[in-house]
């Protein structure tokens, strides 16, 4: 690895960490927070350089940490860094949010950039925790009951996911014969590990929670509905990709695991369709986008599942590209909600302007693979995974579903949540067209590193990309026209977060055990009980020794 890349790699983490350190001095804090939009710059540079470079790693001396950059990670790092720069700069340009929010923002940013370059288990776990936990502060510090609920649920899933991953990582580390905790080394040892299946289950469940795979999808709609628009943009764009990079890093893609691959693919497709269906029942555009994210993460999981089953190691790049496109588009879509709200259309009662609507629709339909958008390239990239058979059909079906859902979203843009206009920074409102265009076109810049751009421009491909979108849009418009609303559409009304109520119920039942524990404790803390316990322990130890 060249000195420049190494230095940039270190700076990717060092820059935000330095600002974080500066925050310890009270008088420097406002300045450090205001400058944090610059912190992702080294990451951006490292990412851009790394997309075309050979993979390389760098050991931080003394701490036992390893940083590693490969093209999939570099691509995600570059686009995530870009997103962070744009949104952060816009937010702080307007007016500095309170320090609590600013610190959480900086911490989340650090973790979000770090997950793409962490090269060993411990540092990956560290940055993964950083991107998960401080994000709580971006939306949940509030007296609003719904925001509190969203925060608590988010935290519960985040922490639970962390616990599963901790065990999975520990098992990975324990399976490495030489005591190395580098991801490359532990993954090399994984296929032969006696605990392979347990580890895979933990990895899929742990990262699946971050990605909102069913049945762990319920937190996401609540979270994005509660988050202010800039926060929702970075969380849905960059934050969720921590789960994607996790699966990319920790699935043994080089070794065909038929059963695991099919299971993951099935789970992914299930999530993809489930997200679309549930999204259609929602009215809040933020919530619809959350369900769209669930659905898209399902597609990514399905692609990874197919790759896992086939032992296709090149899938990591394809999936990363798909995820990068989603990162840009989803963030831009969240900003669209606020930008369009602020641009006055819904307030003044005037309909959205034609070209505005067209741009928003193009952006939204990029997710479905609309030709000439980044989404078309993403679809192309995932082609290898969904090459044939049932997977290809399901992938097409999911494109149709996405188009359907995104049309529903565009239709709901005229009813943004009340705070949407206020939440969106002015700069982003003004430059929204640039943001949207950037999100649509930027993937074209990176695609040459992953595939042949000209492939996307052929007529066959054009048609192949277009017809599912058309069907989806048509279906959506048709449904509206048919007046299904009178028949109860979009009923059945499902509460945002759907299955989350079941988890809350189970949690309430767990909480109900609490008084039982208190009674137990009160009994055991009576002196005679404690004395008897002491004698029992002595006798048990004696028996264990003499008989054992």
């Amino acid at each position, binding site marked *: 690895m060249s000195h420049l890349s190494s230095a940039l790699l270190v700076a990717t983490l060092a820059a935000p960490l330095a600002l974080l350190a500066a925050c310890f001095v009270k008088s420097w804090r406002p300045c450090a927070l205001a400058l944090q939009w610059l912190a992702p710059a080294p990451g951006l540079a490292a990412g851009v350089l790394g997309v075309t470079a050979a993979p390389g790693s760098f050991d931080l001396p003394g701490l036992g940490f390893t940083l590693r950059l490969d093209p999939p990670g570099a691509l995600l790092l570059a686009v995530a860094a870009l997103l962070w720069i744009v949104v952060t700069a816009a937010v702080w340009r307007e007016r500095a949010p309170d320090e609590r929010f600013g610190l959480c923002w900086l911490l989340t940013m650090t973790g979000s950039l770090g997950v793409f370059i962490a090269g060993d288990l411990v540092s990956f776990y560290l940055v993964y925790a950083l991107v998960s936990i401080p994000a709580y502060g971006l939306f949940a510090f509030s007296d609003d009951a719904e925001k509190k609920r969203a925060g608590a649920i988010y935290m519960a899933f985040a922490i639970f996911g962390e616990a599963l991953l901790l065990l999975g990582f520990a098992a990975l580390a324990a399976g490495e014969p030489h005591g190395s905790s580098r991801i490359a080394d532990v993954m090399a040892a994984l296929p032969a590990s006696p605990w392979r299946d347990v580890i895979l289950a933990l990895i899929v469940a742990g990262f699946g929670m971050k990605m909102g795979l069913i049945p762990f999808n319920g937190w996401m709609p609540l979270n994005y509905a509660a988050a202010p628009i800039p926060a929702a943009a970075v969380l849905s764009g960059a934050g969720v990709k921590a789960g994607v990079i996790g699966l990319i890093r920790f699935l043994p893609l080089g070794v065909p695991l038929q059963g695991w691959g099919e299971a993951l693919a099935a789970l992914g497709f299930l999530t993809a369709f489930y997200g679309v269906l549930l999204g259609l029942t929602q009215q809040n555009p933020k919530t619809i986008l959350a369900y769209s994210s669930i659905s898209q993460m399902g597609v990514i999981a399905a692609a990874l599942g197919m790759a896992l089953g086939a032992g296709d190691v090149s899938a990591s790049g394809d999936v990363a590209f798909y995820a990068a496109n989603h990162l840009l588009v989803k963030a831009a879509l969240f900003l669209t909600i606020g930008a369009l709200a602020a641009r006055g259309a819904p307030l003044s009662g005037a309909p959205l302007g034609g070209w505005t609507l067209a741009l928003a629709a193009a952006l939204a339909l990029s997710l479905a693979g609309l030709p000439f958008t980044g989404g078309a390239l993403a679809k192309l990239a995932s082609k290898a995974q969904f090459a044939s058979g049932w997977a290809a059909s399901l992938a097409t079906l999911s494109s149709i579903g996405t188009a359907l859902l995104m049309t529903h979203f565009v239709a709901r843009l005229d009813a943004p949540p009340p705070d949407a206009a206020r939440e969106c920074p002015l700069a982003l409102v003004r430059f929204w067209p640039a943001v949207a265009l950037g999100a649509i076109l930027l993937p074209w810049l990176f695609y040459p590193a992953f595939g042949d751009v000209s492939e996307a421009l052929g007529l066959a491909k054009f048609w192949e990309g277009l017809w599912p979108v058309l069907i989806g849009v048509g279906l959506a418009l048709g449904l509206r026209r048919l007046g299904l609303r009178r028949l109860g559409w979009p009923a059945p009304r499902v509460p945002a977060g759907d299955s989350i109520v079941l988890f809350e119920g189970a949690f309430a039942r767990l909480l109900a055990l609490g008084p039982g524990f208190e009674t137990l404790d*009160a009994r055991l*803390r*009576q*002196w*005679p009980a404690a*004395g008897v316990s002491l004698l029992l322990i002595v006798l048990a130890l004696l028996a264990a020794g003499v008989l054992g």
Partner: protein
Amino acid sequence: MSPWVLAGLVGAALVGLGLYGLILHPHPLRKLLAFNLIGSGVFLVFGIVARRGAAAGFSFDPIPQAMVITGIVVAFAASALAVALILRLHAESGRVTLDPEAWTKPDDGAAKS
């Protein structure tokens, strides 16, 4: 039966009796008495160990005996501290119960903590 065997059995019996009292007597002073019974039982075990270790012209092994002397003084110091606590508790509150429930009250952990 040689005296040390007898003393050993007495020691074991004292430990058993003391354990019973220490566990079951609600009054802290009775617990303290029971603790002292266990203590003397334990010292007797040291005593027979010392007696059995008679050798080299000594009719006992001096090391365990010295330990008993140290132990007796420490046990006394412990008793004195416990008695002081019991008396003070009684003087302050009129009660000497050790039941944890009796001492929990809606307390806000105010500035004293």
